[in-house]
């Protein structure tokens, strides 16, 4: 297996894992875990940006989507409560 094939395999794996992370983030009743799954999806998207030849986007995107969004959402969860209501 050469480097190009490995790179292609990593792209496919990252995309499929991002689907898993998105669905878990949407379905999870625990908002803190949903925020962490959203950060995982953002990390995989940063990898996709890097592979799609946009290194300047990666520099901004990692700081914003992996750093500031989860920080903001965790602060918000601290104020409004961690769990969604069940069965409504």
């Amino acid at each position: 297996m050469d480097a190009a094939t490995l790179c292609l395999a990593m792209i496919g794996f990252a995309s499929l894992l991002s689907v898993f992370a998105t669905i878990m983030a949407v379905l999870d009743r625990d908002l803190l875990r949903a925020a962490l799954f959203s950060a995982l999806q953002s990390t995989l998207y940063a990898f996709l940006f890097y592979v799609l030849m946009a290194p300047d986007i990666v520099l901004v995107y990692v700081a914003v989507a992996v750093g500031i969004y989860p920080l903001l959402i965790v602060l918000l969860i601290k104020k409004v409560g961690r769990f969604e209501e069940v069965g409504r």
Partner: protein
Amino acid sequence: MVGDPKTLVALIVLFSLYANLGASMYGVIARKNLVKKLICLTMLGDTVNVFAILVGYRLSRGGTPVPPVFTEWSKASEKLLANFVSRSVDPLPQALVLTAIVINLAVTIFLATLILYTHRHFGTVEMDRVSEMKKGELVDEVEVS
């Protein structure tokens, strides 16, 4: 030609992005919790940004694509420049996405503030509970007047 690994990976990426788009749209529309709606909205915006970058990625010209950053410029380097132009990806979607990420950040912080004030006013962030309370408030106002 699905047998070609590049085509296969492109199909996988497209399928995953559409699946992410659908899942996060479902989250924005159907989930009742406002914080969950906010998380899904950020994911939706990120997915649309990846779509925009994917539009600017050019495979068809042959050779491996390079980032749109030209570092070797001098006055006698027109051949280098022509080679770079034929290989680099499109920089316009990248500039737009850079702007969109920053705007998304501002919108997210604004919405987080609104959710915080909703929680202070109603004591909850569940959407249907909030609408029940709003209905109650309207009925009270009608009865008073």
